[in-house]
């Protein structure tokens, strides 16, 4: 392909891209309009403007910020520990045929169960503050584990041979051969882990916790304070959505 043709092709792709982003933004706008209309139909749904007002007021409230911090700390620690643990377990499962034969069925089975039902078991062991982090880890662990294991297993045999023929050490193998080869599934796993850490923590906070945004949602539901409830839901959704979309775009770029 000539340079000019390639340039025009990439310009066209850029143009497409802008159109798609505009379309996606338009879709968000449509959702906003639907929300506005729905809020006119029933008193339980606050208007978007009202929700935004409550949200801004909340973010200036130190007590609310304590809840935000509690959830954020739990999510970040669950995500970090879950990704590292999942990555290590995935490596072991991907590299060792015996580890895979022995543990793979249990891993797949555990991945398919509703993990939240284990929360009452975690509570007496890890107390109120630790249990939601452990639940978040359980949620975040599996996508990284499974994607890394599958990715490592699909590393072409010639790469291993190359590594052996240049007498790469284990660390070099990991850093220069395995990680670059599995970067796509690894990043997919990390994106899902980030999302699922939020889901796990918030779900746990719905059940029982001392502080956190999940508790705020449930409490404002109990009080019939729907503006507060929707504002908190909005905050959680917008933040986790933005993180997820940014990771996804990064993932698409490195393809």
């Amino acid at each position, binding site marked *: 392909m000539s340079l000019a043709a390639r340039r025009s092709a990439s310009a066209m792709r850029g143009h497409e891209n802008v159109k798609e982003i505009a379309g996606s933004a338009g879709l968000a706008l449509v959702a906003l309009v639907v929300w506005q209309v729905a809020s006119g139909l029933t008193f339980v749904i606050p208007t978007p403007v009202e929700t935004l007002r409550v949200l801004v007021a909340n973010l200036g409230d130190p007590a609310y910020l304590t809840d935000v911090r509690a959830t954020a700390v739990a999510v970040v620690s669950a995500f970090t520990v879950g990704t590292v643990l999942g990555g290590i377990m995935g490596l072991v499962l991907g590299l060792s045929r015996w580890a895979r034969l022995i543990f793979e069925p249990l891993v797949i089975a555990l991945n398919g169960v*509703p993990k939240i039902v284990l929360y*009452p078991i975690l509570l007496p062991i890890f107390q109120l503050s630790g249990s939601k982090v452990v639940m978040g880890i359980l949620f975040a662990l599996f996508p990284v584990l499974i994607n890394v294991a*599958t990715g490592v297993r699909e590393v072409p045999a010639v790469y291993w041979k190359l590594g052996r023929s240049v007498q790469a050490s284990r660390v070099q193998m990991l850093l220069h051969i395995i990680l670059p080869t599995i970067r796509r599934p690894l990043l997919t796993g990390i994106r899902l882990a980030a999302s699922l850490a939020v889901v796990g923590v918030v779900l746990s906070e*719905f059940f029982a916790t001392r502080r956190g945004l999940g508790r705020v*949602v449930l409490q404002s539901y109990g009080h019939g304070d729907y503006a507060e409830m929707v504002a908190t839901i909005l905050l959680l959704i917008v933040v986790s959505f933005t993180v997820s979309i940014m990771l996804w775009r990064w993932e698409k770029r490195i393809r």
Partner: protein
Amino acid sequence: MMTSVMGGDVEPGTGDDVSIERPDTESDRPVQLPRRWRLSDPLISAGATAGLLVVMAVVAEVGARSGWWRASTLPATSTMLSGVAGLMDDPQFWSDLTRSGLEIGLAILFGSTAGLLSGLLFWKLPTLGRIFEPYLVSFYAVPMVLFYPLAIVVVGINASSVVILATIMATIPVALNTTVGLNGIRPVYLKLSRSLQCKPHQMLFSIALPAAAPFIVAGLRLGVVYALIGSIAMEFVTAQAGLGYRIRYYYEIFDNDRMFAYILVVLVLSVLLTALLAGLERLVVKGRTS
């Protein structure tokens, strides 16, 4: 291997799909035993899994009996098993099971229908598909359970609020996978259908859907799992009936034995469902390639 157009987590062969047969890339590693000593891999897996389960059961039994931990934290295996046996003639349990089964079944039904239809739509109208793509892909970033209080205030605290949210959860993977599968059809298939002057329904049912079947089936399997997880989690958090709700209920009234019996039942049922689906998927994919 096909690369997906949408989130890479949904292609069969990566993501949480480990059940599909793949060429073994490890054959050059020195792990092979002499041929006559070699058991078949599924047999080793089954044996190891059974062994691990027995070990866990024994540890739980011995640990709880000899006071390594408090029996309320994790009761002995025998206690849990007799609890499960006790549930079998408890009408409450059967009504919970029926309720959850109904919710999950409806969510699967509606979710796969909606997912298949939207997948077809996104395939026919690619621009629409690309506009929706970031939302579908990042969908799991949203804890659906957040909408549960909202669903309760809008439709009331009954089975339909659980069904609605579980349906949405089941729809997404089906829609994503259907779109990815249909977009990945080799163009020559569609050219063939045009040169044979297939009618639209022939082209859809005899060419497009079978060609995309591995992806669609993987999507349906995920859809079923999400319907199950969604329904139980939603019941667990706030509901008035169902298996998930009962676990919370027994937790709150400190009836540990019954709570653990319910937890065990939920775990076993979902593992059985996962195994069943993996088997079905293998059948479909194998039947196609042989």
